[in-house]
């Protein structure tokens, strides 16, 4: 029975964020200022004092974006946290966003910490859209960096092209993801873009890395988001309805490996994918649910084709059928669930609301299950949240509704 399946021993108790800014707008602030503001907001949402926080579960190696570092000591000292008992980060990059909540759960289940914060803060001092070009060369990057693949979207355009070749996927499918995601942002007060995106705008946009145009790329935002986790028992005594962790998983197989840092994924089924299929299988198995049980999917949308490939890898359609699936209207938001359809990125995602390396997807999952989302899926019981397809580890998270 999906309502009671899975772990449900740890819950998200609070969420908080700064305003979402455009590139350059937070230049006068520090990473600690942004992260701290989000942490304080999440603690206030939970009805906790920040002094009670005793664990930090980061992702992306606690990097703020891909450049600066979030320092545990600095956060503890400046926020007045009394004693830190757990501090760890998933390796990799944005692939670990959803998985960081699993790391928080691990700390709580093990008894290492009782109130754990996951935070991501992002400034574009190094512009993420061209981050590959701006990094110093390494022996490994010397096999990718010299060829004009300036940023992550350029790298992933190579997967998109192969998917189009093997499965007949068209740019119309990528356009539908951009347009439907924008549609969800129209009602979002904090969204960067609140005007509809038309097919004409999409198809006349500048090509950045053919087949990907401007609207296939996510935003380059700034800001911070924090999430507070605690045992489900503790969370029940706090201010908000607990949102239990039903399952969390991270990792990936050798065939995916470094992904866009080697491009050696041996077969088309792996190359033209998000690398998430093994994680999805483990996640559903541990949750005791199937893709059909998921009510809303918050899919890491750094680039539109990666949404399509995750929909395949997470089992919402067959491998290779992502194009026809999205073009059928299946990912459009409607308040009532429709058979065979799955509302995707009801918050406007990273394509249209804000790009905080996957953290906004966790926030939206929580709001959907509290029943307070702007674009609420009526009676949502299970939300899938995914981390950004990239080098291992990738991750996924299923959140539920407390009894």
């Amino acid at each position, binding site marked *: 029975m999906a309502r009671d399946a899975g772990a449900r021993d740890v819950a998200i108790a609070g969420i908080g964020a700064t305003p979402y800014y455009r590139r350059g707008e937070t230049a006068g602030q520090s990473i600690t200022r942004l992260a701290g503001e989000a942490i304080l907001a999440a603690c206030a949402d939970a009805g906790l004092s920040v002094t009670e926080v005793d664990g930090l579960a980061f992702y992306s190696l606690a990097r703020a974006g891909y450049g600066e570092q979030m320092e545990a000591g600095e956060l503890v000292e400046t926020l007045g946290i009394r004693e830190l008992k757990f501090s760890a980060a998933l390796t990799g990059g944005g692939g670990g966003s959803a998985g960081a909540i699993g790391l928080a759960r691990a700390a709580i289940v093990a008894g290492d910490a009782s109130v754990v914060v996951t935070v991501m803060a992002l400034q574009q001092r190094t512009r993420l859209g*061209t981050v590959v*070009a*701006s990094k*110093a*060369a*390494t*022996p*490994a*990057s*010397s*096999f*990718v*960096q*010299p*060829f*004009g*693949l*300036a940023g992550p979207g*350029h790298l992933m*355009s*190579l*997967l998109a*092209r*192969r998917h189009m*070749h093997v499965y007949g996927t068209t740019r119309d499918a990528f356009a539908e993801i951009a347009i439907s995601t924008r549609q969800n942002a129209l009602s979002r007060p904090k969204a960067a873009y609140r005007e509809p995106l038309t097919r004409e705008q999409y198809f006349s946009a*500048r*090509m*950045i*890395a*053919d*087949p*990907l145009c401007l609207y296939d790329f996510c935003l380059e935002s700034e800001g911070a988001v924090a999430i507070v986790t605690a045992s489900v028992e503790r969370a029940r005594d706090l201010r908000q309805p607990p949102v239990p962790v039903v399952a969390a998983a991270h990792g990936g197989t*050798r065939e995916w490996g470094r992904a866009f840092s*080697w*491009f*050696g994924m*041996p077969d088309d089924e792996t*190359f033209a994918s998000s690398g998430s299929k093994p994680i999805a299988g483990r996640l559903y198995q541990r949750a005791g649910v199937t893709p059909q049980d998921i009510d809303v999917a918050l899919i890491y949308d750094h680039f539109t084709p990666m949404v399509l490939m995750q929909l395949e890898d997470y089992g919402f359609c067959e491998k290779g059928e992502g194009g026809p699936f999205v073009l059928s209207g299946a990912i459009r938001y409607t308040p009532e669930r429709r058979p065979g359809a799955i509302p995707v990125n009801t918050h406007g995602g990273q394509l249209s609301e804000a790009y905080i390396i996957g953290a906004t997807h966790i926030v939206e999952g929580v709001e959907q299950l509290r029943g307070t989302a702007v674009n609420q899926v009526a009676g949502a019981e299970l939300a899938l949240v995914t981390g950004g397809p990239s080098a291992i580890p990738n991750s996924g998270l299923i959140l539920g509704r407390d009894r």
Partner: protein
Amino acid sequence: MSTATLATALPADVVTIRTDPSTEPFWQAARERRLVAPRCGNCGAFRLPPTPFCPHCQSTAVDWTELSGRATVYTYTVVNGYPGLPDITLVPVVVDLPDAPGARLVSNVVGADPAEVRIGTELTVDFHPVSDGWLLPVFRVADREQA
């Protein structure tokens, strides 16, 4: 003859490469305009980029094998502009190497109209200067007679 902008490679001064003991033989060979790939000295599997262990048998033994320079486009993109070079047109590719099965390279197609490049297009290696005297393996569309 098309008037399209021909794809090129990044200017030499923009590209720096770094080596380590696993990768240096690849770059030293490129400097001599030879394309080589590491082949496992134990099980014979090719791998690229060069890495310390064979992922199939964990051996560190490597036979550096000289390749013909022929390649096939596995996937590609067309990139318009690069930081500091707004007008450049590049065709980054991932290529299969017929005489190093299982190994792929990321590279550029140069000297071609980007519209001419397709998945499956046959290529031959060339070498393009980068910083510090190193040469970068890049590819040209193969002569149709030879292909």
